[in-house]
């Protein structure tokens, strides 16, 4: 048999392995976007098209800022990987519906620039960028960020937008004014479906749970963080005494009434800023739950999810160091 003439053929040479699972950054990020869609629809349903406007502005601002900074840094523009869109959407979810539209634009631009690109871009940031953006707008425009509008259904019943409160806010308010808030305003069913005041993406428990089911099914998040986070808040708000004069909230109201589900499912599970091992995730989730409970019960703010995650983000490298896996044969 004569040798085959292979002189003209060139073959691809790359290092092993030559198989790949097919998982890519865009695949992961767009899956997260899909998992956020139920909450997005719920936000429109309960807060009207203004919610959608806020979400669109936050996403567009995030994408444009990221592209602009990457151009300035002379780096490839990678906005199509979906990571800017994810965090833009998450930032919008953390805003009340009454904010002016420049606020999500400024917030998105800030977190992209300072929360993400200043650290070196995707994968290098220490703190959850969407939450960095939230803290920035919260402290810059505190009044606008704490003016809660009622969900659509309540509006029809003639509730005054300015006096409307979130379940957690009402409880905290009671501490200050020593006037018990109206009982029964927030039924468990309302909190489950999302028919309560709050940030536009955080109120509907059912929509968030649909999202987490999808992410767990696809294997992009693991159960440890959300379960530890939520369980810790449930147990601690049940065990610890409330501050004097506070409207006593049940653990269930703590779980459903604020940003806990949104935070535990979508923020505390952010891959970049949280631990990698199962034990690490448990510790991270428990830490978040502890800090959230302490802020909610004894702190000055009605809500503590955002700060608890940011504080625990700072501990991520330490947790990773102490939860290293046992190397085979050692």
């Amino acid at each position, binding site marked *: *048999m*004569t*040798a*085959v003439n*292979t002189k003209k*053929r060139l*073959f*691809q*040479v*790359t*290092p*092993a*392995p*030559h*198989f*790949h*699972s097919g*998982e*890519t*950054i865009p*695949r*992961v990020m767009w899956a997260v976007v899909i998992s956020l869609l139920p909450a997005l629809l719920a936000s429109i349903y309960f807060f009207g098209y203004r919610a959608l406007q806020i979400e669109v502005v936050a996403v567009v601002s995030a994408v444009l800022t990221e592209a602009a900074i990457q151009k300035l840094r002379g780096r490839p523009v990678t906005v199509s990987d979906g990571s800017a869109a994810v965090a833009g959407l998450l930032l919008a979810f953390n805003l009340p519906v009454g904010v002016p539209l420049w606020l999500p634009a400024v917030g998105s631009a800030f977190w992209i620039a300072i929360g993400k690109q200043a650290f*070196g*871009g*995707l*994968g*290098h940031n220490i703190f959850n960028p969407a939450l960095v953006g939230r803290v920035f707008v919260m402290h810059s425009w505190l009044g606008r960020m704490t003016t809660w509008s009622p969900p659509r259904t309540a509006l029809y019943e003639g509730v005054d937008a300015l006096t409307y409160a979130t379940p957690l806010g009402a409880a905290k308010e009671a501490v200050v004014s020593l006037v018990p808030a109206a009982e029964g305003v927030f039924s468990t069913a309302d909190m489950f479906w999302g028919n309560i005041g709050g940030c536009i993406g955080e109120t509907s428990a059912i929509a968030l749970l649909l999202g987490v089911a999808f992410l767990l099914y696809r294997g*992009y998040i693991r159960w440890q963080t959300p379960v530890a986070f939520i369980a810790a808040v449930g147990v601690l708000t049940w065990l610890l005494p409330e501050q004097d004069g506070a409207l006593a909230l049940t653990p269930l109201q703590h779980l459903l009434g604020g940003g806990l589900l949104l935070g535990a499912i979508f923020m505390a599970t952010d*891959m*970049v*800023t*949280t631990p*990698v*091992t199962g034990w690490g995730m448990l510790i991270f989730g428990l830490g978040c739950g502890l800090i959230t409970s302490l802020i909610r019960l004894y702190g000055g703010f009605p809500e503590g999810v955002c700060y608890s995650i940011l504080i625990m983000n700072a501990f991520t490298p330490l947790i990773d160091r102490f939860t*290293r*896996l*046992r*190397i*085979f*044969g*050692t």
Partner: protein
Amino acid sequence: MPKFWTFKGGVRLPEHKERTAGKKIRDLPPPDRVIIPLAQNAGSPPRPVVEKGQAVEEGEVIASPSGPVSSTLHASVSGKVTALDDFPVPYGPPAPAVEIETDPESSSRRRLAPLSDPSPEEIRSRALEAGVVGLGGAGFPIQVKLAPPEGTEIDCAIINAAECEPFLTVDYRMMLESGPKVIDGLKLIMKAVGAGEGIIAIEANKMDAFYKLQSLVHREKNIRVELLQVKYPQGGEKQLIAALLGREVPSGGLPSAVGCLVQNVATAAALSEAVREGEPLIERVVTVSGPALKSPGNFRVRIGTPFSYLVEAAGGLPEGELKIISGGPMMGVAQAGLEVPVVKGTSGILVVPAVHRERNLPCLHCGDCLRGCPMGLNPGDLATLVEKERWAEFEEHGGRDCIECGCCAYSCSSGRDLVQLIKLGKEALKKVKS
């Protein structure tokens, strides 16, 4: 129902074995010329004992052992030595090799004296004389494995029939077609090291091989056949021992440290042939497969046969941009050309379409690499330490324990070349240490 054993970590891969699993091993005639690289075994390459222009007979020794961990090479065809020079090889940069032009007229073949009842010492020296090395890829000379270090006792000899790399069907076909040889090889190994127990471990995607071997050993008291879950890298020596016996080979140690010896199917059969028939190791079975090949199959060819000859036998190169892999898709080496020869460790030649994907994007810290790692390492972390040239930490974090299976890079959403980086780190560590 038998129990399915397994290990921690690893990934589930598409198997792609159906294209060649049903194909009987086909003997191919010798090619026009063979290129026999000297370095085909772990340890020191044998020293050539032939000269350019010299006539050699099939089975004649062309290179003899050069040290305690070395092997013997034989002419795989009768003919004339036409060159002693550097040639392209499938496992690295061009390396010294003996080129032999085949004499189509000659049909003689040199054999060693068959041994019917060899002593342990005779088995070891025969393995060396016949050039039997591990045929799974690493090429460890088996006479060395058959002489465990002083003070260690081997109680269990394991035949690794996991064949966990996708596409490859060499061991599977050998079990179906040469089952008795495989079992005889296992008995010889057990005798050489004094092991009281023999296990043949098969992944559960090869049930007919399992039943075939079980029917062959059902009268043997001290040999059993076990089934393993289909998971990569089940055929990794350490993973195999952990799955079957629950013993962990200590970090940096050899299987003998936990009383085990592992050989693959083809190696056991080759040892049997070397002892019982006096056959030197001059041929092996190679799976030639890939989605675009017209007639993929399992072929028995002479050591030194060019890849091009085998690809031609499998229907020739298809159109399009291709990748040629020597070995399996997880640990195999991509080839720049088809002129490289089959060596003792060549278990497969894969012709697959070239894939262009983004590589080495920033790490997302998702942890998929460490969940896939069968060694309990954090590959993403190790790769970053290599990029930053922090060798001490690389070592402290277990860089040297990596078995280079590729599960991490397979799983990485950022497409990082994790195994490649860790391999670089291991090399660098050797240099730093010396």
